[in-house]
């Protein structure tokens, strides 16, 4: 039962000084977290740079972007305080020991196709799903 704990938490919260909620406005959040906010980082892998142009016909390379950065409240447009509290509670009910921590991960992925020779000089055109990160977000 989480009742006791929740009462305990409420009691704790009520004793804390209120400057927490008065403190950082949205702008401050952004300023303080600006440098490490969850976002897409671009990285281009060039097959030519890897010395593979003898067996990879196309493409020349691909954007191997990745997601990195801190997820801080408000997580994103959908997660207002109410939704966040609901999610927090649901996760807590499922697994009280876990402190849910939003993670920065892809929210939109695209495929690429690679055209290459195999050892027998046959030509292979293969579609690789979820290769290029188009957008990141907090899960």
């Amino acid at each position, binding site marked *: 039962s989480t009742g006791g704990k929740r009462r305990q938490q409420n009691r704790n919260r009520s004793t804390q000084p209120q400057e927490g909620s008065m403190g950082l406005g949205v702008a401050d959040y952004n300023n303080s977290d600006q440098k490490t906010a969850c976002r897409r980082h671009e990285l281009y892998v060039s097959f030519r740079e890897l010395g593979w142009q003898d067996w990879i016909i196309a493409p020349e390379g691909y954007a191997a972007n990745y997601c990195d950065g801190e997820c801080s409240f408000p997580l994103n447009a959908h997660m207002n305080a109410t939704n966040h509290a609901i999610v927090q509670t649901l996760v807590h009910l499922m697994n009280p020991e876990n402190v849910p921590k939003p993670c920065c991960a892809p929210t939109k992925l695209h495929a690429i196709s690679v055209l290459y020779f195999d*050892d027998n000089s*046959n030509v292979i*055109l293969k579609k690789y799903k979820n290769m290029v990160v188009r957008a990141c977000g907090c899960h």
Partner: protein
Amino acid sequence: GSNYSLDGNNEVHPGFIQRRLRTHAKREMQREILSILGLPHRPRPHLSHGKFNSAPLFMLDLYNTISSDEKSQVQSMLDGYQSMLTTQSSPLATYQETAFLNDADMVMSFVNLVEYDSELFPQQRHHKEFKFNLSQIPKGEAVTAAEFRLYKECVSHTFHNDTFLLKVYQVVKEHSDREADLFLLESRRLWAAEEGWLEFDITATSNLWLLSPVHNLGLQVSMETSSGQSISVKEAGLVGRDGALEKQPFMVAFFRISEVYIRTAR
């Protein structure tokens, strides 16, 4: 994310920091990318006939069709329709291939391994044999479509307005002392003046060869004039091994990948 144009001149986005990888880092990156591509090692093809003969050219055309389709989906359906039309008009990837592409995860082209004229038995009718090594197709995959592609040149200077009857057979059983047992896959009437790629659907045959490689005895092609006289496929304008590189016969197979390749996160 596509910071490089898909139409071939892949200049890298100026925003990228160009960094030369040192040897160790380069080897690490190579191992990482090979694992993403699901390849045990980097292939070492023997490109004796140069990099772009008929099969790679055809596959590059398919690749560009996919890429232009992807771009057209981002731009507008109209463009997509336009790219389909241009695909149809291009001599290689026809509308049919584009349709196959939509539900294929993988396409493989196979060069013709063996080919000889029917000089063994003079009284035998002219024919040409073609064989393909499908052993590189991942085990358990089913071919959703397969085509045998032959290039025919115009021979109206020799046969004027004559027509030919072209027949494609699957070789069912070979005999040392007589002709092989054959199964007719398709027959097609052609004008002597016709020029371009001929496509023959060999989906069922390819799946049989995949299921039981011992039955992979190849194909036979024969040609007759309208008066029923057997002529060599070369006289009839079909390009064989001694023809132009970009017109070599080959086979292409489209298939879905059943196994989902999950790469361990690093």
